[in-house]
């Protein structure tokens, strides 16, 4: 029991990170129907931004997090402007291929600029453990930080998307671009904001991973990016709560598999879940099975 609860905690921490990345996938997909394969690499960029802010500029956690979010938000908007916007009217496959190109560019650019070595993230939080429920669950400071930051981000995102004008514009554009633009919504700017917000969330995930697992390197975005993509599809791509659910689910399952079964199967499990869920519910856990097009 104790071990199970402990695995759950670890799984939720890992899942939070997947969820944060998955949100960007799902938001961008929701608004321009693009699987932004470069998204995992934005997360890598965020981790490096955090790494340099902390290790080279000796900033504390929150300022580093904010700087990393800002850098990734700008990077996301820049990628959208340079790589995707010119393809607005091209067939969708062109954009998808471009996304893979951007991803390779960022990975190899990362290898060149940051060098292929793995860097050790400085220790930001004291290594300390708190016991809860009479020792049944032990949380490290890192666990608490990861979970708290994720919850704060979810609350902010919820507020942004459902309560603010920008968020409503985003939802309107994702539902019907032409109608939204006729309401006076600047579709292009709204898409840029979506990229900015998704990328900033990936930055948060990057910094958290740096802190949680203590290492960053230029190809660190590939696997988590893929799993976050799976998480987004699993929850129902384009659906914000779906991304969170999918992320947590994959994080928890992976950790349980690694803890009780064979850690070699860990990576395969995410894919297996995806296949099973898609066979049973093609539009994801929270997806409506047939969305009526108006």
């Amino acid at each position, binding site marked *: 029991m104790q071990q199970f609860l402990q695995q759950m905690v670890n799984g939720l921490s890992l899942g939070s990170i997947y969820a944060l990345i998955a949100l960007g996938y799902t938001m961008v997909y929701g608004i321009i129907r693009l699987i932004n394969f470069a998204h995992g690499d934005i997360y890598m960029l965020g981790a490096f931004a955090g790494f340099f802010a902390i290790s080279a500029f000796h900033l504390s956690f929150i300022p580093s997090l904010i700087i990393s979010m800002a850098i990734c938000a700008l990077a996301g908007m820049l990628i959208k402007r340079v790589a995707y916007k010119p393809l607005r009217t091209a067939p969708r496959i062109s954009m998808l291929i471009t996304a893979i190109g951007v991803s390779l560019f960022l990975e190899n650019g990362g290898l060149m600029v940051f060098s292929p070595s793995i860097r050790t993230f400085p220790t930001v939080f004291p290594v300390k453990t708190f016991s809860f429920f009479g020792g049944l669950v032990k949380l490290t400071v890192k666990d608490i930080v990861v979970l708290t930051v994720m919850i704060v981000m979810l609350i902010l995102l919820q507020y942004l998307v459902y309560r*603010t004008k920008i968020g*409503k514009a985003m939802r309107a554009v994702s539902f019907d671009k*032409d109608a939204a*633009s*006729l*309401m006076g919504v600047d579709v292009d700017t709204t898409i840029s904001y979506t990229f900015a917000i998704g990328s900033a969330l990936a930055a948060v995930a990057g910094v958290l991973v740096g802190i949680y697992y203590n290492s960053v390197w230029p190809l660190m975005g590939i696997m988590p990016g893929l799993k976050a993509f799976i998480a987004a599809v699993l929850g129902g791509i384009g659906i914000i709560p779906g991304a969170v659910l999918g992320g947590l689910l994959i994080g928890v399952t992976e950790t349980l598999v690694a803890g009780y079964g064979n850690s070699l199967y860990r990576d395969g499990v995410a894919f297996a879940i995806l296949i099973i869920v898609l066979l049973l519910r093609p539009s994801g856990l929270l997806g409506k099975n047939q969305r009526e097009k*108006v």
Partner: protein
Amino acid sequence: MRILKGSKLTMKFGGLKAVNSVDFHLDNGEILSLIGPNGAGKTTLFNLLTGIYTPTEGNIYMDEKDITGSKPYSIASMGITRTFQNIRLFSDMSVEDNIMMGLHSRIGAPFLGSIIPTPSSIKANRFAKERLDWVLNYLGLYSLRKEKAKNLPYGLQRRLEIGRAIAPEPEVLLLDEPAAGMNPQETNELMGLIHDLRNKGITILLIEHDMKLVMGISDRVMVLNYGEKIADGKPEEVKQNPEVIKAYLG
């Protein structure tokens, strides 16, 4: 006074000229009806006027200013709003939020002001709230304001779409077959509403299939057939026009 003008407007889709060299004008304060058989190019003309399409040839002027090629969102902010032939509400949003979306063209969504209150966003929000309440009351939708748009009965969805379009106090309102699918009583109410909007100073361009229906309400009628303008004038004149009779019968 001309409020909106199109000269030699042409829209080609491949080889098809959906709108073919149409001269069009809309005078301040009038109700102009645009009629014509299926596929005549009526909706395409709306899409040109609202910036969804850029005309293949020709120009569009608002208050004498050339607005050809302007983006839909800037045309909306110039005071031209519309409804759609097939209702295009944001169906997962509430009635209230749909009307608020319509107000975008007036108050925008500046990044900062959208997230935290700034003096200008506070002012904008107060204005938006006033307009929202006015529209809800005017159209009798107040008690349904929290309801999702998709849960409204069809006739009320049409009404809400008009509400969304009039919320920003447009100068020109474009209505694409607003009576489609309505029963006679709803249609009557709608005609009353259109009249009232015109009396409030909104210039109206109305697409309607049904000749009889537009005759009573329009100051002027313009007829399209296969993308070309075949008549333009007082309802009684247009009704007598042999070409129009032919287009409708043949």
